[in-house]
């Protein structure tokens, strides 16, 4: 009996946001990210018979997605035939230690920051996956999608005070989870 099993009926509910966030931080294009996530799910369906059950469903889907992202970059590089390597010296008119100035390079720092933030994003989605279905939906609508309270209440058929109770419970759990895994 394999340790993990696949249940494609739950894939979109459970993993679409995580996979989408994972992708968009790596390709920086919403449309491409949507296509890659969709391709991942389709590829997952096609190769279900190859799933051995050793990894979790999400890990397995992520490994497919990673290959899709690599394929995407290979494709755009081969099409354009150019992998650009930019080595622009920060300030040509200034004398000084090249390496030291490179370390302080704004682009380099931004890249590091972006990587850290994308990992933080993955950690937040990890924690969100531990919330109950309703909590996760309400929390996502309010916090990530920025929906108005009224819109969420009518969509979810709840009162405003119910919404704030759900948000409170979700925030407490999220804070505890991130405290353990990130902060």
């Amino acid at each position, binding site marked *: 009996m394999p340790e993990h099993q696949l249940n494609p009926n739950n894939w979109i509910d459970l993993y679409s946001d995580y996979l989408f966030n994972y992708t968009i931080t790596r390709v920086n294009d919403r449309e491409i990210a949507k296509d890659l996530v969709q391709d991942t*799910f389709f590829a997952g369906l096609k190769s279900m018979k190859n799933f051995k059950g050793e990894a979790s469903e999400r890990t397995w889907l992520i490994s497919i997605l990673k290959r899709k992202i690599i394929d995407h970059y290979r494709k755009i590089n081969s099409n354009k035939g150019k992998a650009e390597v930019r080595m622009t010296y920060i300030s040509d008119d200034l004398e000084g230690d090249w390496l030291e100035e490179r370390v302080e390079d704004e682009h380099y720092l931004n890249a590091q920051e972006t990587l850290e933030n994308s990992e933080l994003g993955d950690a937040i989605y990890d924690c969100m996956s531990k919330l109950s279905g309703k909590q996760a939906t309400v929390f996502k609508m*309010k*916090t990530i999608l920025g929906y108005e309270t009224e819109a969420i209440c009518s969509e979810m058929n709840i009162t405003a005070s119910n919404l704030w109770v759900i948000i409170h419970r979700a925030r407490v759990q999220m804070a505890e989870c991130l405290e353990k895994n990130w902060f």
Partner: protein
Amino acid sequence: MKEKTKIFLFISCEEAYEICDKSQYGEATLWEIVKLNLRFIWCHFTQAYVKKNRKLTQAIKVSNLQSLNKTERELLIEKFNQELKNQMH
């Protein structure tokens, strides 16, 4: 009169948490924030909760989380269900 003012200004921990949550989304009124601040001065639980809550908001803000919107999600579900059907046949 004094008693009335005291009750008027006093909020419970639970109310303070709710106001703090609302304020993370810019939905707390000025009066609610005043009441929260009053409680914040002396209540350690409120102080701890406000600190944690702000930290969470900050983490979410810097991570720049992205998510599929309703339409994108519905479209994905539709296409996925179609593909799932095709797989079955």
